[in-house]
């Protein structure tokens, strides 16, 4: 798993590259735990190169969501592959998280 960061004044984009499982999700958790993440208005997760996600990866997002909401930070996923989106759907997480098709739509929210 490789995580690349880009940021503007209000937006942090994390691009995930690889597979997010019980081994690699620790890296993502470390990134989302950094206090400065909560200074942005939006955190966008670019899932274009995210080829796999297990419950451990989902758990990282689940565990940070309330903190994001409390800090008024929007967490938005975009460019998600169908097979990864399907894992969110199986649990019903697609209804609880903001997932949009493109970066343009993510930026417009």
């Amino acid at each position, binding site marked *: 798993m490789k995580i690349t960061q880009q940021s503007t004044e209000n937006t942090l984009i994390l691009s995930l590259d690889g597979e997010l499982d019980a*081994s690699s999700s620790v890296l993502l958790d470390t990134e989302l735990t950094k206090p400065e993440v909560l200074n942005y208005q939006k955190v966008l997760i670019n899932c274009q190169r995210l080829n796999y996600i*297990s*419950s*451990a990866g*989902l*758990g990282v997002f689940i565990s940070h969501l309330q903190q994001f909401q409390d800090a008024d930070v929007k967490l938005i996923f975009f460019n998600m592959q169908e*097979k990864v989106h399907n*894992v969110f759907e199986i649990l019903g997480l697609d209804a*609880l998280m903001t997932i949009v098709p493109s970066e343009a739509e993510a930026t417009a929210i």
Partner: protein
Amino acid sequence: MKNAIRISCNRSNLKVVRDFVSTYLAAYSLSDLHLNQIVLAVDEVVANLIIHANSEDDTQHLDLRLNVDNQVFGIEIEDDSKSSYTPSSYREPDLHEHIRTGKKGGVGMALVNRIMDRVEFSTTGAHNVCRLYKKIA
């Protein structure tokens, strides 16, 4: 086609297991989505066995054996951990509660149960076997 592997209880072997299942099922022309679901279910059970049942003890191992019989994919996962999983302890996760409390774990078995057609756990003495089945055609 290789249909059995033994792995040590290290979470770095999760990728090895996913590749093993994907390679084995490549001959069956499953859709990307269907294949990913089966790989995920296996990954979830193996992760639980490595992390929870065997406490990531590298000296312990899991034996995995795959087969397809009458268009049903089956996998047996065996280990000798003292703490075996009891399916009767399973509770459907309340995602709102998980979000509210910032809970990281506890949704893996929900994925397994929703994806696979049959999920069985049995223990004989100190030997545990998990069997998962899914129709693939």
